[in-house]
């Protein structure tokens, strides 16, 4: 890559590196700040006197005797029962991803292998569905769900999230299956397999990279969702994101905003780990749709 065209003047290198460093600070600082501040007391994290207090933990030392405190986490996880929300999130997200991928691989495979016009129209329809704001769909669900007593259950939430996930999952897996050569399953058909056998014996063994990448995005969609989980799940079944929103309503008066800060950090941690391990898949997933047009 050290061709002449790549060589650059020192001034430009300084400028562009400076810009990237600035961006990295803007991208990372809010998270580092909140992570650090979550181990302080409210008087430090929201310091009227001097924001440097949040770094040294001046009030924290006065109030708790140490410069770090886990009071926010204790309050959120134990006192306010955030563990229940975390457990609910795990259940909802796990089943949403599994079911989404099962439906999506079957559908995506069919769309990739069918040359008919209706396959194209289905993809376009999926694109339109993908664009629907989730809250408009929720306003369609609420009344019927109330009437049929479906409201509030985890199962309802899971099914709705699976459905909302489908357009995206279909598109993504469809483009992955287009990359798997047709000859592979056609030769299996010649050898006497049925379509489903060809899918099971020939396609499934080679599809995992695509499925893992799509799974990551299904996970993110379900994990990050607020509109559906906040409106369709009852208090007991609430997942982490609406639970955090609920903290805000209840904790501002009590001066326990630190519970919400701790909860926010707790909910971000899994995402952090996720990027750490799956960065390559996330990047390839983001670009999969784009590079192929």
């Amino acid at each position, binding site marked *: 890559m050290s061709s002449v065209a790549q060589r650059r003047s020192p001034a430009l290198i300084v400028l562009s590196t400076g810009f990237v460093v600035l*961006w990295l600070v803007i991208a990372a600082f809010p998270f580092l700040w909140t992570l650090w501040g979550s181990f302080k007391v409210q008087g430090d994290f929201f310091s009227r006197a001097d924001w440097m207090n949040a770094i040294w933990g001046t009030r924290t030392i006065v109030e708790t005797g140490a410069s770090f405190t886990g009071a926010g986490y204790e309050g959120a996880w134990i006192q306010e029962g955030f563990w229940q929300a975390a457990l609910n999130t795990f259940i909802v997200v796990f089943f949403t991803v599994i079911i989404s991928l099962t439906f999506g691989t079957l559908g995506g495979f*069919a769309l990739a292998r069918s040359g008919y016009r209706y396959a194209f129209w289905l993809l376009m329809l999926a694109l339109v569905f993908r664009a629907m704001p989730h809250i408009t769909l929720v306003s369609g669900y609420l009344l019927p769900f109330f*009437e049929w007593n479906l409201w509030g259950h985890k199962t309802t939430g899971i099914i709705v999230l699976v459905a909302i996930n489908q357009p995206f999952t279909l598109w993504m897996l469809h483009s992955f299956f287009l990359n798997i050569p047709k000859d592979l399953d056609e030769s299996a058909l010649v050898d006497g397999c049925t379509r*489903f056998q060809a899918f099971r014996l020939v396609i499934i063994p080679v599809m995992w990279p695509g499925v893992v990448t799509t799974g990551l995005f299904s996970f*993110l969609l379900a994990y990050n969702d607020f509109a559906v989980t906040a409106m369709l799940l009852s208090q007991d079944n609430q997942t982490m994101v609406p639970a955090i929103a609920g903290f805000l309503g209840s904790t501002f008066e009590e001066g326990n905003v630190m519970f919400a800060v701790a909860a926010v950090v707790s909910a971000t941690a899994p995402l952090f780990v996720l990027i750490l391990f799956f960065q390559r898949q996330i990047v390839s997933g983001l670009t999969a749709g784009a*590079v192929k047009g």
Partner: protein
Amino acid sequence: MPHRTFFWFILPSLLAMFLFIALPIGSVLVQSLFVEHEQVLIETENCGPFGCTPSVSVDQEATQALRDANPLGRFNGFGTYTDRNHLAFVEVADGWATSDGWADFGSRLMNLPFYKALAFTLAYTFLVTPLVIILGLAIALGVNGLPKMLKGATIFVSLLPMIVTPLVGSLILFWMIDADGIIGATLQRLTGDPSLSLKASPALTWLTLFIYGVWHSAPFAFIVFYAGLQTVPAETLEAAQIDGASRWQRVRYVTIPYMAPLVVFILLIQLMDNFRVFEAIVGLSAQANASSLSILIYSDLRGDVAQFGSAAATSMMTIIGVAILLTPVLIRTWRDFNRKRA
């Protein structure tokens, strides 16, 4: 693939989408034509020593019975669409007739909830989207020039704002811009105005939301552009340089044309996502100064008595908005598809 096999393969997925995306749209349409029942009033006479006085009270039992018997409410046609909380035909016509000048008419329009929300949604969509594309391209060009060993870590950090839950991301920003938070306090010190609050004025709230939107979405554009940059052939760049093109000219006439299809892709995704701006407003508690179409629906459903009819009418108009937004893309894709077949 034969039709029959295709059908069985796609059935689960299609069924899920039909039941929980297509039917709800139908349900929204039906709901939008109805409004809640009026309360049943009964007239009773209170008789005391000085004669009888008639009084009107709400018959709770009868009202409840009516609601239970007909949960949709009573038929209202397109009445909900044209009332004050939606398209507000009467108020707009009145404003048009009596206002002096565009500014006055505009400010009257902004007092109507639907137009206020629409204005913010459109402003957000059409400001944040281009900014995201420009910033994303700039970051991608910058990162592309970094030494190889630093790229991985840079991409990791850059992904954070996008991957993190929107509500959580906006809450983090909300705490930082608090008057006692780090950004809010620093701004007060810098401007020397101890009453400066980013949360109080509509203009500053809008600005905060736009900044959040760009911060949240720029990584997406960055990653897509960065991947695209790897496909720009070095030979073309070298040829341009031999022909005497400056660095800027090479970016302008070689790199950017290679990025054009990616811009279309990012544009499509960003328009869809920015049009439904929602969590950021909840996270920043900005409902008072900035509301979006999604927020209108949310607050209708969240009220003490859920107003299904009103929420459904707004939903319907949001869906129409999405359709208008998507039409150019759909037409383009349809043309491409036909060209490929031909």
